[in-house]
C-alpha cells in the first residue's frame, strides 16, 4: 500500500484529505507541523508528500528544502492558500513537483496523486538519442545540441524538431504538422507553421554550413541529415 505523508496544520482539513485518500486505497500519516513531519521522514520512507506552506514554526518551503536534501526523489505536492505569484515561484524553486490551491476538488487532488505515484513507480524506458550528425536530440531530457552546444527551444519548437527528425526521409506537409503537433480543437494557421520553421532554422542552422531543415516548395519540409 502506498504511504502518503500529509503535512497540514488544520486538523479538520487534513482529516478530510486523509479520509478521502484512504477511501482511494492509500495509507496516510498526518503531521500538524514541520517539526513533526521531519521526525516522520526520518523514521520511514513515504511515496508522496502533500505539504501545506503556511505551517506554524518552520514553514512548508523550508521543510521542502530539508526533505529534498534527505530524499530528492519523493514527489511533493504543495497545498497553498496563496495562489499568489511569489509563492508559486518559490515553491518550484525549492523543488516542489506541483501545487494545489485551496480549496481544491478532491478528485483533482486524487488525479495528481495518482499521476505522480505512477511516474515515480515506473522509470520510463529510455528513448534512444536521435543522432543527426552534428545535431543530437535527447527525447528523455528534451534537449537539443549542435556541435555540443545546447540550443534552447520552447516545448512547441522542440516537438516540431523531434517530429521532423523522427520522420526524416520523407516530406512532411504543413497540414500534417498542424494535425500532429496541435490538439484537435486547437488549430494553427499555415503561416504559424512557417514562423516556427523559421525560428528553428534560426536556432539550429544559422551560422552553420550544413542546413538540416529544407523546404520542398509546394509540398512541405524535410530533414537532410549530414553525410558522415
Amino acid at each position, binding site marked *: 500500500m502506498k504511504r502518503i505523508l500529509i503535512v497540514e496544520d488544520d486538523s479538520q482539513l487534513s482529516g478530510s484529505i486523509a479520509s478521502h485518500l484512504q477511501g482511494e486505497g492509500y495509507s496516510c500519516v498526518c503531521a500538524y507541523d514541520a517539526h513533526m513531519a521531519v521526525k516522520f521522514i526520518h523514521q520511514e520512507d513515504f511515496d508522496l508528500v502533500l505539504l501545506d506552506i503556511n505551517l506554524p514554526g518552520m514553514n512548508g518551503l523550508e521543510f521542502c528544502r530539508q526533505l529534498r536534501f534527505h530524499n530528492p526523489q519523493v514527489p511533493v505536492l504543495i497545498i497553498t*492558500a496563496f495562489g*499568489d*505569484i*511569489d509563492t508559486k515561484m518559490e515553491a518550484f524553486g525549492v523543488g516542489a513537483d506541483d501545487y494545489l490551491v485551496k480549496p481544491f476538488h*478532491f478528485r483533482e487532488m486524487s488525479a495528481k496523486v495518482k499521476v505522480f505515484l505512477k511516474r515515480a513507480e515506473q522509470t520510463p524506458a529510455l528513448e534512444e538519442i536521435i543522432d543527426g550528425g552534428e545535431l543530437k536530440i535527447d527525447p528523455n531530457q528534451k534537449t537539443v545540441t549542435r556541435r555540443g552546444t545546447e540550443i534552447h527551444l520552447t516545448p*512547441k519548437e522542440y516537438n516540431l524538431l523531434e517530429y521532423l527528425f523522427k520522420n526524416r526521409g520523407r516530406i512532411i506537409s504543413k497540414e500534417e504538422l498542424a494535425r500532429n503537433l496541435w490538439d484537435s480543437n*486547437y488549430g494553427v494557421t499555415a*503561416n504559424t507553421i512557417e514562423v516556427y520553421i523559421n525560428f528553428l532554422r*534560426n536556432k539550429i542552422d544559422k551560422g552553420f554550413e550544413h542546413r538540416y531543415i529544407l523546404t520542398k516548395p509546394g509540398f512541405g519540409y524535410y530533414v537532410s541529415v549530414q553525410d558522415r
Partner: protein
Amino acid sequence: MNYKKRLTFLFVGLFFLVLTTILSYIYVSYADFRRDEFFERLRQKSMTTVTLLVEVAEIDREILKIIDRNTINEMWDEKVLVFDEDDRLIYSSLDDETIPYSARLLELIRTTEDKFYVDEDGDEVVGIHYNENGHDYVVLASAYDQYGLKKLENLRNLIIVSLLAGCILIALATYVYIGQVFKPIDRLNRSIQAINVNNLREFVTVSQNRDELDTLANNYNQMLARLYRAFEMQRAFVRNASHELKTPLAVLQGKLEELSRAVGKDDRKAKEIVTTLIDDVYRQARLIESLLLLERLQSEVPIHTSPVRVDAVLDATIEELSVKYPALRVEMGIDESVTSDHELTVDANPILMRTCIRNLVDNAGLYSSDGQLSVRISHRANTIFLEFANAGGPELPDEIFVPFFRHPDEQHKQGSGLGLSIVAQIMEKIGGRITYAFADGVHVFRLSIPSKEF
C-alpha cells in the same frame, strides 16, 4: 554632464581666470616700465645734444652729428632735431631722415609740456622744451626700442605658452584628482545599482573608514532594510489573508465532498444541493484570489520578471483550459511580421503573463457564441500584439476594465467581473496595455506589450 566633468571645467576655468589676470598684470607693468625707461633715455639724449649745441658755442654741427652717431649708447633708428625760437630747424642728426612734426606740435611743446608719443613708423618720440641761459629751443628725439620691444614680445609668447600648458596640466591633474575623490562614490553607486527586486536583502558594502560615504552607505542600508520590511509586510498580508480566508473554505469544501460521498446516489435533490454548494465555495475562493491579486498588483511591491515567450504561454494556457472548456475551439495564428523568436519574447512575470492570457481565454470560453476563439500574434515597432477575437453578444461598454463590472445580460454566467481589470493592471505593470474593439458582431481584445530588447 556629470559632476566629475563639471568640477574639472570649473577648476580649469578658475585657474585660467586667475592666471590670466596675474600674467596680464605682469605684462602690462613690464610694458609700462620699458616705455618709461626708453623715453627717459630719449630725453637724456635730447638734453645732451642740445647742451652740446648751446654750451659748446663753437661746435661744428658736422662734428656734433659724428658725436651723435658714435655714442656708445646709440639707439636703433635714432634721430634728433633741434628747433630755435622761430621753429626753424637748426640741427638734424641725419640728413636724409627726419621726424614728422608740425608747427602746432612744436608750439604745444613750447607752451604746455614735454611730449612722449609713438609716431606712425612705430618709433617712440620725445619732444622737450629747452629754455636756459636765454636759449629757447625745442628738441625732438626719436628711436626704435628694438631690444626692449623684442623682450616684450618674448614675454608675451612666454605668457601665452605658460597659460596654455598650465590649463592643460591643471585639467589633467584635476581630472585625476577628482577621479580619485569620486572613486568611493562610484563604488557605492555600483554597489547600489547591483541591488534590484531580486536581491533586496543584499546590502551595500561599508568600507569602515567612518567617513561621510560610510554614513551614506549605512543610511542607504537602513532605508533598504525598512523597504524590505515594508515589502515583506505587504507580502505577509496577502499570504495571511489568503490563508485565513481560504483554509476555512478548504475545510468546508472537504466536508462537503465527504457529505457528497455519504449522500446516497438516489437522493438526487441532496446531491444537487451539495454540488451547488461546492461550486459556490469555489467561486468564493476564486473571488478572494482575484481580489488579493489585484491588491498585490496595486501595491508597490516589486515583481520578479524574466524573459517570457508569449506563444509558449498561450500554448500552455490553451492546453490547461481545454479541460475546462472542451467545446471551445481555438485557432492560433502568428503573423508574417514575426521573423525571430525575440519578437515574441517579453520581459514579464511568467505567472502573471499566464494569468493574463488565461483570463482572456476564460472570457471567450464563457461568452463565445459559436465556441470559437481566434488568437493572432503580430509584431510591429518593438511591440507584440495579441488579439483575442470571438463572436457573441452586443458591444461591451467602456466599463469592462473596471473591477466588478459585469454585463447586465450575462449576470447568470460564472465569473467575478475581475478578470479584465486584472489583465489591465498586469499590462500596466509590464508597460503594455489592453484595448477593446467591436466590429461585425466580433469582440476583439488586443494586448500590446513591448518586446524584450536583446
